[in-house]
């Protein structure tokens, strides 16, 4: 083990459990409890990558979610994860990770060459150059290759994810001292409390500062006790490794729980998800998310070995890692002192430059006692080194203004820490519209404890700018009492004053950018946002170029755009912008805080909506029969419908041809179970139908069926189907497969909102009925074999009649309707008997070679008859008249049915509308593409005026030639009379780069008189 490891008993790593891992192809050892970052630092690994724009060497800066640099690719193959922050990766045995930047090699990075030209690549330089149309794609290619951190996996994910929906009286986000104490107070009072923390262990800041004394107890003991009690409370639930990444309207928290990523690959469970998305709706939310220390901005502040002061401290205290042995720190405040003391006591040499000329005397004394060399009134104006920090250049700075007042020493060091103050973690507070406010004394954007109490959101601790432990814990009591009051619970236990050993804080110095005596931009690069290589000079430049809104500055420089979302950089950026703009920080304001607080795996967001639970697949009761008979399925809405049935040696065309011929010449059978079915009952059911359909229902007698067109208020066809009159006050409606849900909701909407007085109720019975359509000249004979109680004779059971009876021993409704133009019966039975019915009909039809057919054949058969399919032959711009279906519109109905009024508008009533026609190609073997465009002349010199398009097109086995349906401008005038194929108008159909001559004919190609369906 190298000298970076300092074994002390407060460390939260288990020195008895060494762990071996691999980084960039080398093997290392760490300990249980380490993060990848702490283990790498312990092994002396400093440089973890190269920067995005200038290729500068970069190392670890932080110790948690705020880390901007150490983005690593963890594991390989299907298990790989890009861009994990090394500071958040828990070490496990065999962990394999690598750097994500440095190209072609970390030691020689091409971008570092560009770094030398960095003065010619200021913020926004892309916008100013590469303007050649010809060259830009080439430049862009280079830019793209150079961008990006980790790599997406190359294989599909083998892990699973799930969602959990919870409801809580109180959610406490953050398990630091304040979150813990609040949860305890609330839990003791009997509230249902859910406590979330992103980290492996509860304790927050206390884990890094174990020397704190709370009520005379060492911090760790205090922690241990409070956690033990919390765990004993039945209504308190604790989730660690769980990051609340978003807060949405009305107190909804989204949090992601890491269930497995911390385990060695071999120990991960296959039955459990990798991560779980919790959606928690809470009556009350307590945000105890703490604060993150921001560094100061100074020259070369991005060298590896330069961290935030608190990160240096965290590595020492929590992980037993001294990042360096000779440490120089600088601070604007009291917070860095404890860490400086701890480092000195651990044997490091520590120089602490306090930018304040008068530091906190208590801290100063403690520091001296610990052996820290405190330099009041000094600052680090720049760091020295090339691949790692080697020295710090100290300067004296003026007491009141941000300028250099004298020289200082250059101090050699191997680690440098800075503290520019704490930035409260206000992200969640702001996600749903909350705004933090600037506290000039705390030098922080804070979320007030009770600022949103009215909507149940409370804040406590660091997030409120309460940076002292003692006042923060007292605030936890106050907030607890406020929540208890709001929930009407009495508090349990007295609220004693809590004592800590913290000295009273004195104000921090208002400094963000440490001066280097130069005009901004002339000195060494001073980075604000490490991940996006944004310097203080870039911000000044943006302002000079009039990008003055903080949102413009963000967008022009990419400040806060990275995977850390500016956790370290934003406030520094705002402050530097304020200075450049000559405005106050609150006047500059913040950019918008948006989810995710920490990045979330897409897989987690998707959860169970993946694979065969991505979306429902709806099956008919006959599905197993279809599978057994070689069906190829088509998605229609969510349903799976047989598209055609393949027999050995057949292709799709042959199958369709066979199926069609069977239906036209013998008998076919089709599963029509997916059609929407709505049962309507009531005295006014008939009137209701009159209003929602274009045609009239006044005369339809029981035992009869009628086809109807349903329109929207815009007068356009939205659905169609056959409705049967069961009795005077009872109707059975069918809808299209895809339209069923929409139609039912549409009807309910009209009934409930417009015509509640109509006595009618409707219920979906789509799933109740299984429907088999027996189709073809032999259908009657087939049905007769399995149905003895219905008189099937043509004279008694006519076309568009329906009957009740028994088919294959099952109670059935049989409709004599036809979507094929053939003699046909649609048999409906309780869906539990659908399979039985189907098999019985097939058995009965065997002697007639009954042939199951799919949607392809169905489409073809109905097209031969000129029957439309809503959504295929119509597109939301077709009226019944455009479809030449005036017969399905009753303009005389007393009530102005839905859509009627719209017919009268000038365009809807006007000439030149596109109308449904049939088309015949001159060459009968050519099958037009569905979607071919109709044009007037064969030449194609764009732009070409289009008259319409082909909606349906097939090779008709019945006619031995191709046929098509199309909508064509003025089509009805252009077409030849029914039954005659000698079209009057010759047009051209264009698709796939070719034109084909076509005649416009009637859309009814087969049996125009309807003799077959009436047979």
């Amino acid at each position: 083990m190298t000298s970076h490891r300092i074994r002390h008993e407060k460390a939260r790593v288990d020195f008895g459990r060494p762990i071996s891992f691999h980084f960039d192809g080398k093997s290392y050892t760490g300990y249980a409890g380490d993060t990848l970052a702490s283990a790498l630092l312990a092994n002396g690994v400093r440089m973890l990558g190269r920067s995005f724009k200038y290729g500068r060497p970069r190392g670890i800066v932080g110790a948690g979610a705020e880390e901007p640099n150490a983005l690593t690719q963890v594991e390989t193959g299907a298990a790989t994860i890009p861009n994990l922050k090394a500071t958040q990766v828990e070490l496990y045995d065999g962990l394999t990770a690598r750097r994500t930047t440095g190209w072609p090699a970390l030691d020689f990075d091409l971008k570092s060459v560009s770094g030398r030209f960095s003065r010619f690549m200021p913020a926004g330089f892309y916008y100013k150059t590469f303007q050649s149309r010809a060259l830009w794609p080439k430049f862009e290619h280079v830019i793209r290759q150079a961008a990006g951190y980790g790599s997406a996996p190359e294989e599909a994910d083998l892990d699973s994810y799930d969602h959990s929906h919870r409801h809580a009286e109180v959610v406490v986000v953050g398990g630091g001292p304040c979150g813990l104490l609040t949860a305890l107070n609330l839990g003791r009072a009997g509230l249902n409390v859910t406590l979330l923390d992103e980290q492996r262990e509860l304790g927050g800041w206390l884990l890094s500062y174990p020397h704190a004394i709370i009520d005379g107890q060492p911090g760790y003991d205090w922690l241990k006790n409070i956690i033990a009690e919390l765990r004993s409370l039945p209504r308190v639930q604790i989730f660690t490794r769980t990051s609340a990444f978003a807060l949405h309207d009305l107190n909804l928290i989204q949090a992601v729980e890491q269930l497995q990523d911390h385990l060695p690959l071999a120990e991960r469970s296959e039955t459990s998800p990798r991560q779980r998305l919790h959606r928690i709706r809470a009556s009350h939310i307590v945000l105890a998310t703490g604060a993150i220390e921001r560094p100061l901005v100074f020259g070369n502040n991005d060298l590896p070995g330069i961290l935030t002061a608190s990160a240096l401290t965290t590595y020492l205290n929590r992980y037993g890692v001294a990042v360096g042995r000779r440490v120089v720190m600088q601070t604007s405040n009291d917070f860095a002192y404890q860490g400086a003391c701890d480092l000195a006591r651990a044997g490091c040499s520590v120089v602490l430059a306090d930018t304040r000329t008068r530091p906190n005397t208590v801290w100063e004394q403690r520091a001296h006692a610990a052996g820290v060399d405190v330099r009041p009134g000094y600052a680090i104006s720049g760091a020295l080194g090339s691949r790692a920090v080697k020295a710090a250049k100290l300067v004296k700075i003026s007491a009141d203004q941000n300028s250099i007042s004298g020289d200082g020493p250059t101090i050699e060091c191997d680690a440098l820490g800075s503290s520019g103050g704490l930035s409260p973690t206000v992200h969640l507070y702001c996600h749903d519209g909350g705004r933090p406010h600037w506290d000039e004394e705390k030098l922080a954007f804070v979320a007030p404890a009770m600022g949103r109490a009215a909507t149940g959101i409370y804040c406590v601790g660091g997030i409120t700018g309460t940076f002292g432990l003692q006042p923060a814990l007292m605030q936890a009591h106050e907030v607890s009492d406020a929540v208890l009051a709001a929930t009407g619970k009495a508090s349990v236990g007295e609220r004693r004053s809590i004592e800590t050993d913290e000295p009273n804080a004195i104000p921090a110095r208002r400094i963000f950018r440490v001066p280097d005596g130069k005009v901004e931009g002339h000195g060494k690069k001073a980075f604000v946002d490490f991940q996006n290589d944004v310097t203080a000079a870039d911000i000044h430049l943006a302002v000079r170029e009039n990008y003055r809104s903080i949102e413009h500055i963000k967008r022009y420089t990419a400040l806060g755009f990275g995977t850390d979302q500016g956790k370290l950089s934003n406030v520094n950026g705002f402050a530097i912008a304020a200075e450049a703009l000559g405005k106050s920080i609150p006047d500059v304001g913040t950019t918008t805080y948006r989810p995710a607080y920490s990045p979330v795996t897409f897989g987690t967001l998707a959860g169970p909506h993946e694979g065969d639970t991505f979306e429902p697949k709806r099956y008919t009761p006959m599905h197993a029969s279809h599978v057994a008979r070689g069906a190829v399925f088509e998605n229609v809405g969510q349903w799976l419908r047989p598209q055609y049935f393949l027999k050995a040696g057949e292709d799709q065309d042959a199958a369709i041809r066979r199926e069609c011929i069977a239906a036209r010449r013998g008998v076919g059978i089709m599963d029509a179970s997916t059609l929407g079915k709505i049962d309507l009952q009531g005295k006014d059911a008939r009137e209701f139908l009159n209003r929602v359909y274009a045609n009239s229902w006044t005369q339809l007698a029981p035992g009869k069926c009628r086809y109807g067109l349903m329109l929207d208020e815009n007068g356009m066809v939205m659905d169609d189907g056959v409705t049967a009159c069961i009795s005077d006050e009872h109707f059975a409606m069918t809808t299209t497969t895809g339209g069923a849900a929409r139609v039912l909701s549409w009807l309910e909407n009209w009934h409930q909102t417009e015509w509640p007085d109509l006595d009618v109720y409707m219920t979906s019975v789509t799933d109740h009925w299984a429907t088999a359509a027996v189709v073809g000249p032999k259908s009657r004979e087939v049905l007769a074999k399995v149905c003895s109680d219905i008189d099937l004779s043509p004279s008694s059971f006519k076309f568009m009649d329906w009957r009740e009876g028994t088919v294959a021993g099952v109670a059935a409704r049989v409709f004599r309707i036809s979507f094929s133009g053939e003699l046909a019966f649609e048999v409906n039975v309780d869906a539990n008997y659908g399979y039985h019915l189907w098999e019985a009909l097939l058995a009965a039809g065997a002697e007639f070679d009954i042939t199951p057919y799919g949607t392809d054949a169905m489409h073809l058969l109905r097209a031969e008859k000129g029957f439309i399919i809503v959504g295929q032959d119509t597109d939301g711009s077709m009226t019944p008249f455009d479809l030449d279906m005036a017969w399905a519109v009753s303009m005389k109905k007393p009530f102005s049915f839905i859509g009627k009024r719209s017919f009268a508008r000038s365009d809807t009533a006007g000439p030149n509308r596109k109308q449904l026609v049939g088309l015949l190609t001159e060459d009968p073997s050519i099958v037009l593409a569905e979607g071919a465009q109709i044009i007037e002349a064969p030449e194609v010199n764009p732009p070409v005026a289009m008259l319409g398009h082909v909606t349906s097109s097939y090779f008709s086995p019945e006619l031995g030639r191709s046929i098509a349906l199309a909508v064509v401008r003025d089509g009805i005038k252009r077409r030849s009379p029914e039954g005659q194929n000698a079209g009057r108008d010759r047009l051209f159909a264009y698709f796939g780069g070719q034109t084909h001559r076509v005649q416009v004919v009637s859309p009814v190609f087969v049996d125009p008189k309807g003799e077959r369906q009436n047979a």
Partner: protein
Amino acid sequence: MKKDYSIWSLFTKGLNYNEGWDPAWRSAELKPSYNVVIVGAGGHGLATAYYLAKEHGVRDIAVIEKGYLGGGNTARNTTIVRSNYLWDEATMLYEHALKLWEHLTEELNFNVMFSQRGVFNLGHTLQDMRDIERRVNANVLNGVDAQVLDAAEVKRRIPILNTSRNARYPVLGASYQPRAGVARHDAVAWGFARAASKYGVDIVENCEVTGMDIVNGRLQGLQTSRGSVRADRVGCVASGHSSVLAKMAGIRLPIESHPLQAFVSESMKPVLDTVVMSNAVHGYASQSDKGELVIGAGIDHYTSYTQRGSPHIIEHTAAAIIELFPIFSRVRMNRQWGGIVDTTPDACPIISKTKVKGLYFNCGWGTGGFKATPGSGNVFAHTIANDEPHPLNKAFSLDRFSTGHLIDEHGAAAVAH
């Protein structure tokens, strides 16, 4: 116009510590009166001002913006630019824009990073494929580049796409427009602002229009948070806030303002070099030059002006993206956001005169107006300057809602037997 931005200027200014750069645009104070006031400094509003100045010689123009310029939907869109629409009217309008895009960088002397990396619209059902065929043929006849690709070809071009027959909605094919692509959204606003400013257009940020002065059916001027201003003509280009402005003029528009959300992944090495959209699976994705996947889907169903939406929409979008690209399952979402989109009943924009003389509206671009930015500004400038629509936007007037001449770009209603 002087070309201030070049390699040369970067070099010379770089030598001088980048101190010599001029403001990209001039921030102006509101004057008491203008010839034309444009309300809304989004891409469309700024482009309108630019073309008014450049092509119609109008110089006395203000663009008034309640927030920061380019901060509306322009700041938050997923930057897809294409022109392969269905109906002639829409196709011609978007194609007009696409042609302008192709030269925009040079014209504005500002690299808007227009990247013609192609757009695939996937088809997952037979009806999708019919619609694709129909649209592509129409595009070709309208002189727009478009192709129909089968599933195998789609897979060849986008190897990471899931084209398995076992997918819930297998990819059956796609339409492809090679000239389509993406652009850098912010740069478009800044480029137009800079170019308009050079023509003397006043850009007034942080100034909200709060009322309209209308006398005898004629617009006289506006009330704003920075005082009143007189104007001969006012063009409102306020996207999601159009109804709010219309109300000030006593008008109702056929618009609902819905949240539309998007999100980006963390930045990654290049894996996706084109744009993939799927209506059936409900999501689309591209990868930006910085390396993040830029992802979006459909609108939230309720109306809202909050610029944020509901998380289940994002969850479903992530599911759709994984369905299309299984390898993205372990990729992480970095940031999500929302815009306020101005949807119309026919999914087509409104570029129109109104019954108030001197008042014009350009709105209703809904989920897809970024691609139209230069074209929209161009024809709207014409409409305002001539008090008559440009031939390309005549069909997009408000009267279509009374005559019934809707241009339904929702695509064919996806129902079938």
